[in-house]
């Protein structure tokens, strides 16, 4: 915080309690040094990761989105290109630099994505994002300019696409987009790589209705590309990619719903659930593309065999389904990441269970996580604890009163803070920062400028406004506050008294705005 009007250096005083971080989306950077978690409040946390030990330390909190983060994807195939694209429930998209945490590009679209697959097309130097969501097309976007390069349309039963997978079939030069609509129509587009926004509408080449409404994910087995895994909340299924016939189905366990899954190899799959567990299955021979029995009718004796369960015994139940991400460390092994509602991150190593160990179908193994960490745990490990703005006011017996609104007045170099109990406190900004962040003899002084206390609200202070900051037509001494108590208070900042208290009968005041000039 500087007194010069053209330079404001943001300083964060975190306080003793960690920020809530209910994870909705999780991703590990290509170089495996940065973990990215997006949460339901729209913030994104960057964690420093030691790839050998999976020690994770929160490093940065990126603020920019105003709604839950729904999906994220890497922006480049280049290993040390540290950019990531995130997309929120309001259609906001951002490209972030993972090194310094800066937002490089942002747009707000009328389209809300639920999934983005980064994919390098045949003719392209780097990846493009294949997006699907609450709209009836597939949008192909540039991860750095965030422009729509082209879109894929449907001729037959156009509807929202609920799951999508892009792949290049073996020994072919064109790319294939495999997509499933919410109403269970599989669609296939074949792309040559020369598509542009101006070109004629690109329609699907094939379209076939199947019986799996509202699929969550679709993925193709990488080895032979003949089998497809489709995960729906109540079951997962293996399909033959050539004619989209069902080869096997597994219903979810009681009280659990599938969330997603991946092929581990030709005959092994990994699926995870909203209860925060992951299940490993060995596929029956009619689902394995290089087997003699492939595509034959499944027999009762040969069903998917559950050979391992990844779980974690959490004390507190999860308040919403966690986010998962599967990744491979070359030459080390396969791993599964989970981020949950308590800002906790788990890593499981996916065990390589040999064929011999599965002989006689023993009961499934249980795999405990390799590493468990959380924001709260990292917070507790900081000594002395992170300082807060009003630490000097806290008594040690009672829990501190939560801050619910704050504004900074650069002209006065003062910080105005609204609290949960309805009080408003004004403190000198620079001194507060000095007092909390710098160690030295000044901490012993007892002649600090006193703080001001404004009392007038009977409940949480939701918002604060210093209108003079926006337009000089407003008095320099006026400060406004709005609260849970349906009231707007007008304060004299210099005298420290309440000038007016306006009460509406409509409801809580959530925001105060200065009207435009005209």
């Amino acid at each position: 915080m500087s007194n010069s009007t053209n330079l404001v250096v943001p300083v964060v005083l975190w306080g003793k309690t960690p920020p809530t971080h209910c994870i909705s989306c999780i991703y590990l950077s290509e170089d495996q040094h940065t973990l990215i978690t997006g949460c339901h409040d729209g913030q994104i946390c960057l964690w420093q990761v030691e790839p050998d030990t999976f020690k994770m330390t929160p490093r940065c909190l990126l603020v920019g989105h105003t709604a839950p983060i729904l999906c994220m994807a890497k922006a480049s195939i280049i290993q040390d290109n540290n950019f990531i694209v995130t997309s929120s429930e309001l259609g906001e998209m951002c490209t972030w630099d993972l090194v310094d945490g800066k937002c490089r590009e942002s747009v707000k679209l009328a389209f809300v994505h639920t999934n983005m697959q980064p994919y390098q097309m045949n003719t392209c130097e780097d990846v493009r994002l294949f997006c699907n969501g609450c709209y009836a097309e597939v949008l192909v976007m540039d991860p750095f300019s965030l422009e729509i390069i082209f879109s894929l349309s449907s001729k037959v039963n156009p509807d929202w696409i609920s799951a999508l997978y892009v792949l290049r079939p073996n020994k072919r030069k064109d790319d294939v987009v495999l997509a499933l609509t919410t109403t269970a129509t599989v669609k296939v587009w074949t792309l040559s790589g020369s598509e542009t926004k101006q070109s004629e509408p690109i329609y699907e080449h094939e379209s076939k209705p199947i019986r799996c409404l509202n699929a969550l994910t679709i993925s193709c087995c990488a080895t032979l590309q003949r089998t497809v895994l489709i995960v729906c909340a109540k079951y997962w299924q293996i399909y033959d990619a050539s004619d989209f016939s069902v080869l096997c189905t597994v219903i979810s366990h009681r009280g659990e719903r599938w969330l997603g899954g991946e092929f581990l190899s030709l005959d092994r799959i990994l699926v995870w659930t909203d209860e925060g567990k992951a299940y490993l299955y060995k596929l029956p021979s009619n689902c394995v593309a290089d087997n003699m029995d492939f595509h034959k009718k499944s027999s009762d004796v040969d069903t998917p065999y559950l050979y391992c369960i990844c779980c974690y015994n959490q004390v507190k139940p999860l308040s919403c389904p966690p986010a998962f991400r599967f990744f491979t460390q070359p030459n080390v092994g396969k791993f599964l990441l989970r981020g949950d509602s308590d800002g906790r991150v788990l890593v499981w190593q996916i065990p390589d269970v040999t064929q011999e160990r599965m002989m006689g179908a023993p009961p499934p193994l249980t795999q405990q996580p390799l590493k468990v960490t959380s924001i709260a745990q990292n917070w507790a490990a900081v000594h002395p604890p992170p300082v807060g703005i009003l630490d000097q006011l806290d008594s040690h017996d009672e829990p501190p009163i939560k801050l619910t609104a704050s504004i900074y007045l650069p002209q006065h170099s003062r910080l105005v803070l609204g609290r949960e109990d309805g009080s408003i406190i004004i403190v000198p900004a620079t001194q507060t920062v000095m007092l909390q962040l710098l160690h030295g003899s000044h901490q012993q002084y007892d002649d600090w400028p006193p703080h001001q206390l404004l009392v007038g609200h009977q409940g949480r202070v939701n918002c604060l406004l210093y209108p003079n900051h926006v337009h000089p037509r407003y008095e320099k001494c006026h400060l406004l506050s709005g609260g849970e108590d349906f009231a707007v208070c007008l304060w004299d900042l210099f005298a420290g008294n309440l000038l007016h208290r306006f009460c509406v009968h409509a409801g809580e005041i959530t925001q105060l705005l200065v009207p435009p000039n005209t």
Partner: protein
Amino acid sequence: MRHPHEHILTEVEKEEALCLQKEFEWVIHKEVHIILKQLQTILLECSKRFPLTLFGNEGPYKSDKLILASSQDTLKTIVNLNGDSISFADIQLKVHRHHQHQTQTYKTSIQKEHPWKLHQIQDAGNHLQFALYHIDNVDEGYRFKSAEEVLHVLDNILNCLQRGRTSLIVPRKRTIDDLMKSRNMKSLTPPLPEDLAISFYIQSHKLICAAYQLSNVQGTMKFEQYQAENSIPWLNEVLVLFTVALQLCQQLKDKINVFAQYKDFTVNISSSTA
């Protein structure tokens, strides 16, 4: 030594806290399920109004025939609405030509080979469907474990309903350029002159046909707008049901929030009372 009054007060408070705790468990274990069931009934009713294949709704669907007319009949349209698409439309537009000082009439049509899809209807239907899926995902005998868990489910449902309602009430903004280049414009038969554009969209319960006449006034592009509209009967019912469901859901959320502010309130999972 404690003051006797203080002691009595804490006893009363203890009892009150116990009552609140019991009430909380009742809300979480019983009331939530009852309201979700009611909500499901309302949303299924809503979904039956849609002429689309949705959760608990399978054809056949009747089509609507609507006449849209503007004041002084500058714009007049007869529309066949089939599901979420205009399968046929007869459009007649009277345009004043300044340089010719006369009014010219243009006629065009939408043919069934190139229907005009009203994606707003599909979007609303899909959002509604997702709300139903969120309810369906809560198993009948499921015992919620915390207020946060219920709030998450309710937020999901509320978000879906809000988005569904918004997609009908607030049409997606398009530039005149996008409209001119759209596939729908290109498939009008016969095509309209280059300075005219037509758009169909939904605004709350009404189907609106808007016509735009572009003109170049001293180098800047300007456009005049004509609008014709008519109400779609089933959309009105859909909007009412959306609103009723939103209210019901919000009320339950408020109820849960009352308990959620007491941080030491937890549900005894093993308890078989409630």
